């Protein structure tokens, strides 16, 4: 059986994919995963997951072409900056 191994490098950090291994059962998978990804202090914790237990989703169809739902390319930073500037002017104008 193929297992996918994820490792956490430091406490609080997200788990990241480390690699995969082949093992006869969960016990072997745990031992091998510790051997390959954990025994030298390089990981805080491991997730060892049978590959078949992982659900993969990759087809994100946008059949109605409603791309106005998407926020990619919309830079909030710029808009915020402009809004702040406007607000600043407004503030100055009112104080006057």
């Amino acid at each position, binding site marked *: 059986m193929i297992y996918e191994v994820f490792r956490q490098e430091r406490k609080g950090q997200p788990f990241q994919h480390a690699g995969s291994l082949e093992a006869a059962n969960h*016990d072997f998978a745990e031992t*091998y995963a510790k*051997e390959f990804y954990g025994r030298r202090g390089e990981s805080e914790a491991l997730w060892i997951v049978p590959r078949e237990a992982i659900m993969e989703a990759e087809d994100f169809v946008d059949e109605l072409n409603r791309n106005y739902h998407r926020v990619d390319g919309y830079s909030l930073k710029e808009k915020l900056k402009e809004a702040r500037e406007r607000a600043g002017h407004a503030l100055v104008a009112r104080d006057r």
Partner: protein
Amino acid sequence: MNEQDTRSLLEIADDELILGWRDSEWTGIAPLLEEDVAFSSIAQNEIGHARALYELVAREQGTTADELAFDRAPDEYRCSTLVERRFLDWEKTIARHYLYEEADAKRLEELKQSGDAEVAGLAAKIDREEAYHRIHAQMWFDRLKDEPRFTAALDELRPLLDAGREEHSAELAELWEEMTMVRRSQPAGTRW
């Protein structure tokens, strides 16, 4: 360090060196690639333990770890015949691994109680790594325990645990020839 401690340390060191050598013979040819890496790592640990133990004994005897490891005659080694055997079948290798780890755990437990703090400390340090070897051995035992080829190997090898350390097999002499070849090919005192 008392005489008894020195003797046990040397016995364990010789066991670990020779077993480390034998286990390392599986590097690149183990039945599974994952196991190849894991077992090679175990082999390397054993040789590392041998080195640490030889260093303690060497200081006691006014010699060096290298001289103890490589410059004695084969009949001066104090290893068990169990570790000397050369196996080309995996079930025997795993049976030996299991029997050895079981016996090794017992003597390390005793050594951890030694009145000599340095001996007890080293035993504890070695035992922390052996704990991983025991998990590995147990895992294989659980997997193979109902296989006749494995139980036959256990039955064949178990008596070797009590076979004594005075008599050695011809296999040790052959291993020693290879193990010490590089050192013997150069004049004594050659710096590497």
